[in-house]
């Protein structure tokens, strides 16, 4: 094992997959020489050259369309969209084209595309560079949505995403880029569609994704002092959602809080809450509570009021415990 940063873990995954498979190529704005806005693709140009590391014009729709067209022919593009917010600039290509190509043409095509995009707030990047849009994509049949919280998962999930035969929206959290964690020296994969129990507990289940996993773990530590043992589930993959891991945990704890950084309204918390209520109402000892951002854009210098945190999660847990 060795310690590495989240951003380096991403870079390692790209390096390894490009070395393994000639069909893998990287495409996006500034991905070549500069190594991407956050340096995730640093060193790829030197290692694999201009043929496989493609710097593009600032044309997000063309980047995604290129990836779709190339993937339909059997290549395995990894497209970088500089900020997750910019995914909205190419929504047609992502939603009407990429997500539907296989279905619409009756299974004629396989589209192994990965679209990497850094999202999330915490860097004071303002309303157009800070959003968490996972629910938008999770709502679209045909896409997979991945959202790692740790360097270990980031690397393993990215490698799996590149090997997956479906379009994957890979949402990195840019406030986690500098975070450190242990990863093995040898090669490993983290499967898509499999959540991870990051902390075992018996009293309440906290389901979280991306940066909120760390807030949930902090909250759990705090709650433990009061004798409340929270089980923290890191979704890792938003879709396909690992329903089993959630159900198994809620069967044990009978209480559920869902935490995400995106606005609470119509977010993935609503889906998970509804799913658990539909499937296991009899097991629940309290209503499911959600923790998410307020229904406002991400404000530049007021993020401190905006971002959900460990305190909010702990408060929600206390409410379900007291119910």
């Amino acid at each position, binding site marked *: 094992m060795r310690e590495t940063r989240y951003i380096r873990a991403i870079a390692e995954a790209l390096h390894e997959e490009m070395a393994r498979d000639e069909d893998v190529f990287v495409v996006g704005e500034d991905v070549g020489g500069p190594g991407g806005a956050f340096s995730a693709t640093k060193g790829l140009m030197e290692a694999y050259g201009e043929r496989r590391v493609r710097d593009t014009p600032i044309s997000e*729709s063309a980047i995604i*369309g290129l990836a*779709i067209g190339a993937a339909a022919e059997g290549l395995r593009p990894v497209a970088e969209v500089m900020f997750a917010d910019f995914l909205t600039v190419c929504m047609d*290509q992502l939603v009407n084209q990429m997500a539907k190509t296989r*279905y619409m043409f*009756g*299974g004629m095509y396989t589209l192994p595309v990965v679209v990497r995009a850094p999202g999330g707030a915490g860097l004071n990047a303002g309303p157009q560079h800070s959003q968490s849009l996972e629910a938008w994509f999770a709502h679209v049949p045909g896409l997979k949505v991945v959202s790692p919280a740790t360097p270990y998962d980031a690397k393993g999930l990215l490698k799996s995403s590149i090997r997956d035969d*479906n379009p994957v929206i890979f949402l990195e959290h840019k406030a986690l880029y500098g975070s450190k964690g242990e990863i093995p020296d040898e090669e490993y994969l983290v499967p898509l569609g499999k959540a991870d129990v990051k902390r075992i507990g018996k009293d309440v289940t906290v389901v979280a994704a991306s940066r909120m996993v760390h807030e949930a773990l902090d909250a759990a530590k705090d709650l433990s002092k009061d004798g409340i043992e929270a089980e923290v589930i890191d979704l890792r993959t938003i879709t396909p959602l690992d329903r089993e891991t959630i159900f198994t945990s809620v069967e044990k704890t009978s209480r559920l809080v869902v935490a995400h950084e995106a606005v609470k309204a119509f977010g993935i918390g609503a889906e998970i809450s509804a799913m658990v209520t539909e499937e296991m109402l009899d097991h629940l000892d309290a209503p499911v509570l959600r923790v998410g951002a307020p229904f406002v854009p991400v404000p530049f210098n007021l993020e401190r009021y905006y971002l959900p945190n460990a305190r909010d999660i702990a408060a929600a847990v206390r409410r379900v415990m007291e119910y």
Partner: protein
Amino acid sequence: MVNKEELLRLLYLMVKVRRVEECLVDIFSQGKIPGFIHVGIGQEAVSAGVCSCLRERDVVFTTHRGHGQALAKGIDLNRFMAEIYGRRDGFCKGKAGSMHIASREAGVAGSNGIVGGGLPIAVGNAFAAQYRNEDRVTVCFFGDGASNEGTFHESLNLAALWNLPVVFCCENNGWAQFTPQKVYMKLQNISKRAESYGMIGVTVDGDDVLMVREEAEKAVERAIRGMGPTLLECKTHRWLGHYVGDPQKYRTTEEVEEVRKFDPIIRFQKYLLENKHVDRQYLDGLEAGIKMEIEEALAFAENSPIAPAEELFTDVYA
């Protein structure tokens, strides 16, 4: 020069496209086809002229008005018809319909319901050919209206920049849905835009199949020889409404009648007759053969069942 065999092939493609679309209008009006359809009657010279210079392995990206493009590329008529009927034996098992016809065997990558949506994907297709050093070319059809989508500009710029083996074929029928070109753009010749991306742009009379063929051949040749993409604008005429059943309140009856004088098939037949490449008897025989093909396709489609309910859940993910 186009040899006699090829001349006859062009004629066959144009007449076939025309008769198939006439048949589609007919059966759609009888309520036999669900949804809605767009036909390109009057525009046959474009698909025939362009697709006739492509090889099987070359790929076309087609549009919502793409029956002709797909047929001219050689798509199987039976399965084409079954797809339009929404039946199990259609290319896409009834999930696509007229607007999303596709067949990989025929090199018909798939038609798009989003105006301009196919251009970036066609660029990706051409990129794959270049990446793997494959000897093939990609043709992307789109309408005059589509040339005002951002994807048009992004795609042309990128394709020119990377010298990709693609031909952008603008099938300019003068109308974008209910709006004539002069109402929505200042330029008359869309091919002029090519220059701003550093590629060759050409405008041809899209009702003259030999002109289309000649310029398409040059464009395909350039693409194959690594000389990059071309924007080929073919000016043609849409005889009918935007969709079948469109009352066309936005243009006069005189105009609707007027455009028929540009008939690319009559024009080409005249040329062939005058140059003694064909006689009347040949033309009659051609019509009879096509009629049989269509009847067979209709029977195939009508005898094909609707796919079972389980089909709803297949093909969402690989």
